């Protein structure tokens, strides 16, 4: 089985997801005894192809202005003719927000089996298995691809760390863009930045962060008061923004803001990976949650399993006492 890794880029730069997918690709290629090939489709492909060739023995590069952004329609149309005559394969990509648009449709048109957002890969009896999470990200599951000869796997960010080795001098095969002249039905217009607010949680040293567990009608005064006493700011996970309890610029996570405070106090946050991806830089993570199995306890250093509305007021009292 050949292993292909699709390079992802934005604003003419390769993204880290590319190197992580390559890391996963090398691991599974070693287990299966197969070769790794990077695929890079971009508007200006040479520099990216050269970078990839320093890490990977074989690179296929395709240049076309329509690959300037990660337009899933253009990528899908191009990847089918590139991959269809290359025998059995596993195609690996990052599970980024751009690739979420691409991978499912691509698997259909390639007649491939698909597993998304995988954080582990194994080989058993010569066949690949993928490990991912289900049920609110609280349960781990291993999936097989039956007897599929074409497999597409997307990988969770941060699961396959990679250090650039600069140890290969791979061959770059440049092929002509297979895209025809017919117009795309999906068109990129422009990038937009998120709205900025009156607090900048990215630069805060102390963050009190709120999640779904604070309830549908939270008593915000309790949390504002704790944040004040601690000298910190309020932040939150996605459900709090979805419910319009706090504005978007308070949201921590991969689709929100990445933070690196000295102390991150997570209240009622389950710890879905999108959230955890935004707090990796915090030296101290403390979680209070009533669910002992909440994933947040696996990234926190300290935790309390209990009712937030009992623990938080008590905590504020104790902090006040220590301050005086």
């Amino acid at each position: 089985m050949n292993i292909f890794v699709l390079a992802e880029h934005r604003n003419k730069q390769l993204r880290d997801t590319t190197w992580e997918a390559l890391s996963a690709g090398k691991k599974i290629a070693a287990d299966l005894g197969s070769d790794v090939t990077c695929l890079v489709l971009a508007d200006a492909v040479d520099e990216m192809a050269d970078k990839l060739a320093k890490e990977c023995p074989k690179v296929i590069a395709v240049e076309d202005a329509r690959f300037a952004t990660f337009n899933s329609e253009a990528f899908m149309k191009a990847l089918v003719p590139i991959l269809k005559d290359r025998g059995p394969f596993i195609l690996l990509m990052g599970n980024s927000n751009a690739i979420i648009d691409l991978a499912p449709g691509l698997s259909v048109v390639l007649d491939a089996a698909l597993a998304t957002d995988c954080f582990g890969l194994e080989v058993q009896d010569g066949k690949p298995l993928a490990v991912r999470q289900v049920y609110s990200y609280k349960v781990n599951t291993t999936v097989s691809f039956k007897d599929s000869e074409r497999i597409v796997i997307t990988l969770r960010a941060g699961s396959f760390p990679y250090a650039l080795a600069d140890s290969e001098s791979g061959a770059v095969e440049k092929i002509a863009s297979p895209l025809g002249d017919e117009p795309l039905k999906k068109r990129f217009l422009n990038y937009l930045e998120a709205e900025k607010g009156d607090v900048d949680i990215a630069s805060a040293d102390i963050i009190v962060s709120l999640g779904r567990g604070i309830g549908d009608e939270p008593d915000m005064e309790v949390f504002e008061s704790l944040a004040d006493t601690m000298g910190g700011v309020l932040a939150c996970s996605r459900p709090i923004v979805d419910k319009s309890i706090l504005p978007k610029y308070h949201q921590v996570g991969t689709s929100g803001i990445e933070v690196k405070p000295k102390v991150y106090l997570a209240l009622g946050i389950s710890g879905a990976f999108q959230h955890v991806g935004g707090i990796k830089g915090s030296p101290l993570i403390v979680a209070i949650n009533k669910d002992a199995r909440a994933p947040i306890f696996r990234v926190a250093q300290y935790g309390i399993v209990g009712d937030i509305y009992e623990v938080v007021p008590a905590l504020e009292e104790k902090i006040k006492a220590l301050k005086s």
Partner: protein
Amino acid sequence: MDIIVCMKWTPDTSEADLAIAGGGKDIKKDDLSYDMNDWDRFAIEEAVLIKEKTGGKVTVVTVAPEDAEEMLRESLARGADEAFHIWDEAMEASDGFATARLLAQFIKDRPHDLVLTGTLADDNCSGQTGGMLAAMLGIPVATLASGIEVENGKVKLRRELEGGLYEAIEMDVPCVISVATGLNEPRFVSIRAVRKVASLEIPVLELGDVGLDASQVGSDGSRVETVSMSLPPEGEGAEIIKGKAEEAAARLAEILKEKGGIG
């Protein structure tokens, strides 16, 4: 505009205590309550908002066991015009691909300018249905849509990228849009609205009605298969501070003070 909304009936696992079922390939579901997938609530709301602006018809459809009728009724109360319930025992254990195939079969012969889904479902966390459906129907797709505008037979939308960045995209119709949570504010459903739709008929479509056979659905029609499921070990990671709320809070306050968590 003819809008078809695909919905999923999911167990509420976010706050529940979960256990692995005998056989080790799924969780115990008997004690879990089921509801409309969180993401899909924003999809049905958006469909109704678009209909209210442009006119047209909203159709909801699900592939789910009998109990899911409750979700379809709720969707009608939220403003959908008609609902279809696809189910047959043979469809049990369908993966994303087999489910998308069922939905595509249902959609392909019906008028559809817009097909809406949630980007993810809280049970399998796969995010596959929208993209697969679009490829099966031969139309474009965008996921994680956090703002949608429909004008002159085109759709403009904003989709989330990472780190607070968005991209604006334009698509021709027909197309599939998988929505992000927080796209809109799902309306409150009054008891009156629920009563109004209580007697509407919801057709149930079995395997033959959608034109597929048993080899194309369920585990036979699936391309991936669950080998095993397990709960990550408890207690791995954080040091859990024991004791009553008072005591635990006192200990935590000391830790915070020590680590610079009191500014």
